[in-house]
């Protein structure tokens, strides 16, 4: 599973990355966390508000720091 954090490096992006990592750890998933900081790449996801989170290329969170519980729910769904 590939988890991507989209954002140009603001404090909120770091918090979201931490939450995502915590969520994936707790679920015991095998995952790869990638921070996407290049604006060109971010725009390719169609995201206009950072931070955002994508799972396997699908955008799940836009413009907010989701809590670990919220992210867990997203990771569980197929």
């Amino acid at each position: 599973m590939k988890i991507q954090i989209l954002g140009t490096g603001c404090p909120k992006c770091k918090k979201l990355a931490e939450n995502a990592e915590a969520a994936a750890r707790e679920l015991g998933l095998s995952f790869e966390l990638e921070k996407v900081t290049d604006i060109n790449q971010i725009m390719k996801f169609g995201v206009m508000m950072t931070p955002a989170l994508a799972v396997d290329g699908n955008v799940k969170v836009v413009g907010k720091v989701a809590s670990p519980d919220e992210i867990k729910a997203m990771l569980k769904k197929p």
Partner: protein
Amino acid sequence: MTDNCKVRKQRYLKWLCGISVGAAAAILYWHLEPLAKWLTYSLLGLSAASKFSSAVDFFLFETPKVMLLLTAVVFVVGVIRSFFSPERTRKILAGHHEFIGNVLAANLGIVTPFCSCSAVPLFIGFVTAGIPLGVTFSFLISAPMINEVALVLLFGLFGWKIAGIYLITGLLIAITAGWVIGRLCLERYVEPWVYEIKINETLEETVITWNDRMRFGYDAVKDIVGRVWPYVIAGIAVGAGIHGYVPQDFMASIMGRCAWWSVPLAVLLGVPMYSNAAGIIPIVQALLEKGAALGTVLAFMMSVIGLSLPEAVILRKVLKLPLIFIFFGVVAVGILIVGLLFNLIMPYMGFR
């Protein structure tokens, strides 16, 4: 009980809880004045005539009042914002020409969730969707400058007139400045790679229920009120403190109505400074209270929260320097005109 039933019951309980908290807050809000008086003069037993007791009374009345107002407004704005994603705002704006577009963009700037750290993706998203540059700027100007926290604080501390003036002049500046920038045909100063970006516009809009919207409001309260409450309390404390201790017209000679040069000076000082809206209000309060002119203070406040160096640095990624200068210049001139105008017409509007 089935799971589904349990979830539904929990949901009802949550709504019931929310409504009762709201009702309790409203009742409290309407009884704050006698409550503050009772606390000050009966419970603490302070004498009614002293400067100190009137400062305590002021503080005990204003703090819960402004905090309640702030929480309510941030909640409502949070719920309203759940209707306006940047995607939807972009869709609304894309179908309009200049001027109407500028007016819409300035208004949408108030209700669309915005943070200056995502100004760049938003700018690219707007411009590549064919929204004119000037219309995009109207949005980028109004979004930070018209701030709901500032609006509430102004309303709570100075009344609806000053809050209304802030809202209307903020909109006017955003509309006009955006329109002027549009007329100047400055597209060549946008970094060329911006127009080459291919955007994936297939990002589907997620279905949002009313529960989610309430959640949105709740999160906004937790985030914003949780962050700004110390500033708010500091602001009111400053207001209470200077109530009697600094001479009334302390600022009148340097920032009063007759010192016309104080407006440009306020803008010049305010542009590079940055503070969040809640942090600037204590200063506004102190200045106004001590005889500074409304136009001057308004100009200072708008230039501090509306324009900032960090924002310029962020926007430099997509805008060439001349455009950044023009952007800041046009907005600063707009603020300047508003400040001067207000100092001129203030006496006719019932202000000092």
